């Protein structure tokens, strides 16, 4: 690949995909990385476990609804959970910029601790580096995590059939909207608040129904639109969702409308998107809605027989394609 890295390469959209396909997969794509899972399922000594890593460079470090510390816990915990595992151990690596106020670091580490305790994960190993002023923007965090596989789940697209249901566990786009509003200094009355939170309880709660669950993912960078396209791309089915059934928060909606953003492209950090057999939709909703993080869970659409096509029934009943976002919608969102 000629040229240089552009911010858009980190956006989670089409450019990111191209980068991975041209630079990462040819080198590392032979093993478990081949299918580009957010978490790999591996076997060691006869035991199956999930392994995942994520780096956090969000700006600003603190935002309505959370900070980079809890985000770094939730990001990895959620990647492990949606792979069908019970998160157990995390590593915590910090890159600190000379001059970062200790009080800020303290608040962020407190959030790491609170987040880890709430998720039942142990911070098992870590690392700290300091770089000169100007060489990083306050603080970057990397976390990696290990989870025990919940054996009931057998996730995969092979069994997907038309009529299967698409569910989300809560309002979409809250994290991206909160970051954008904080960064741009928009003062909106009851504006967007990040949904940075774990989804592992939602996964655990449906383990008894796991046989009919085909796929789970948390729609972070690139939003719901990206996850839906990744699901349908190259598979034997298509997806159809209804705009009027998408749960959203009023503050997030107001910001999206003000800026002309498509909520389907905006990141969540505490939302679970799930594909399951139709008859499981109601029992899953029922279980999810007993948790605060699942209170607004909804069926948003269903699987169709139109291979590879993701379509949206718009708020007024028109039908259109759901495309991947392109370029730098929002750099440094997580």
């Amino acid at each position, binding site marked *: 690949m000629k040229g240089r890295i*552009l911010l858009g390469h980190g956006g989670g959209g089409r450019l990111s995909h191209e980068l991975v396909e041209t630079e990462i997969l040819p080198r590392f794509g032979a093993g478990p990385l081949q299918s580009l899972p957010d978490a790999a399922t591996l076997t060691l000594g006869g035991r199956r476990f999930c392994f995942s890593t994520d780096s956090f460079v969000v700006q600003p470090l603190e935002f309505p609804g959370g900070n980079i510390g809890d985000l770094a816990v939730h990001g990895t915990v959620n990647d492990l959970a949606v792979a069908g595992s019970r998160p157990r151990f995390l590593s915590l690596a910090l890159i600190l910029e000379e001059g970062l106020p200790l009080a800020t670091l303290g608040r962020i580490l407190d959030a790491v601790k609170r987040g880890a305790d709430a998720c039942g994960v142990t911070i098992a190993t870590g690392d700290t580096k300091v770089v000169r002023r100007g060489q990083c923007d306050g603080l970057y965090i990397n976390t990696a995590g290990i989870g025990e596989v919940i054996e009931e789940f057998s996730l995969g697209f092979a069994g997907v059939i038309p009529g299967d249901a698409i569910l989300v566990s809560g309002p979409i786009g809250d994290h991206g909207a909160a970051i954008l509003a904080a960064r741009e200094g928009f003062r909106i009355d009851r504006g967007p608040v990040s949904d940075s939170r774990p989804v592992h309880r939602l996964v655990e709660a449906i383990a008894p129904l796991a046989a009919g669950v085909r796929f789970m993912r948390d729609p972070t960078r690139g939003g719901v639109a990206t996850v839906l396209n990744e699901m349908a791309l190259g598979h034997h089915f298509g997806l159809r969702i209804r705009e*009027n059934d998408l749960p959203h928060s009023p503050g997030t909606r107001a910001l999206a409308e003000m800026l002309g953003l498509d909520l389907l492209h905006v990141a969540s950090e505490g939302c679970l998107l799930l594909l399951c057999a139709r008859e499981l939709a109601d029992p899953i909703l029922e279980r999810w809605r007993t948790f605060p993080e699942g209170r607004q869970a909804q069926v948003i659409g269903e699987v169709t027989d139109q291979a590879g096509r993701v379509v949206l029934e718009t708020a007024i009943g028109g039908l259109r394609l759901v495309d991947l976002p392109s370029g730098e919608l929002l750099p440094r969102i997580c």
Partner: protein
Amino acid sequence: MNYRDGFRRMEAAGHFRRRLADHGRQLAREGRVVRLMEVCGSHTMAIARYAIRDFLPAGIRLVSGPGCPVCVTDPGYLDAAIELADRGVIVSTFGDMVRVPGSRSTLAQARAEGGRVEVCYSPMSALELARNHPASEVVFLAVGFETTVAPVIAMLDAAVSQGIGNLSLLTAFKRIPPALAALISDPGIRIDGLLCPAHVSAIIGADAYLPFAETHGVACVVAGFEPLDILLGLDGLLQQYLSGKARVDNQYARVVKPGGNRQALALMDRYLLPGDASWRGLGTIPASALNLRPEFSRFDAGNRHGLILQPGRLNPGCLCGEILKGKLAPEECPLFGGACHPDRPLGPCMVSSEGNCAAAFRYGGKVGMASGVCA
């Protein structure tokens, strides 16, 4: 959205679907085809996003006009902005401009090579940048129609009153009415009705469209951007067309006054003077630019940084110009979706979120299907 809300919206939309179908049947009986143009990029995007072309029967053609400010900006302007970034000036811009191809490069590339390009969502961010970097020069890329001109000039006014000395504007402001006048008097283009944008109209006033209705017999409706507003607007245009009486209907009278926003217009008038502008695809249109008055030339980035704006080089294969006039649909460009797509845009129409090609690409080829305003 709560379920009942959504349900009511669907019901209202169903009502308009039936009305438009009725109009379609009448047109078919009379053997006529009506050609409507949505003037503004925000309408283009909303029409694509809500799949409003799904509602139109065969005899109603909806074509996209020149109302995407990024799309009609000359590549030479981008070259100047890139040069500023290369020289170490902080360039503050709306996100859309970052990936628009200039003659050789883009602002995104300039940034990757070390240039300081800051994306903002509100012009006030540029003021903030200038205040926070007193030792640097900040240039705001002032591109847009009347809707954008007003807040940018309000920002400039704040900069002037706060005595901020390191901020200037690289202006490519454009006015909608002269462009519409040019399109309507082009004998190669037929337009029966104009869907006029609420936000631009809120500044310039609904009366700005009177000449089109009265002199050229073109139906005009000022409509909002909610999907139902647009359907109502299209229905209004059809009623005017079928009754044979063109006028200016203001469906947004709550916000859009006949004479516009006098306060904003007065402020704009204090800082700006009309001049000729070159529009990508449409050529030079008299009095369609708004330039800084000579007494404010210290805020003119071109002046301040000694830039000589030259007409840039367009990608020769890009048919943006024809598409901006509504003469071709995006899908009719041989590069559409192949060599040119939103991540490797060859023309501005594929970059801007309001561009006709981007809308067509993103939302599944429904946009611009009904093309060909050529009579």
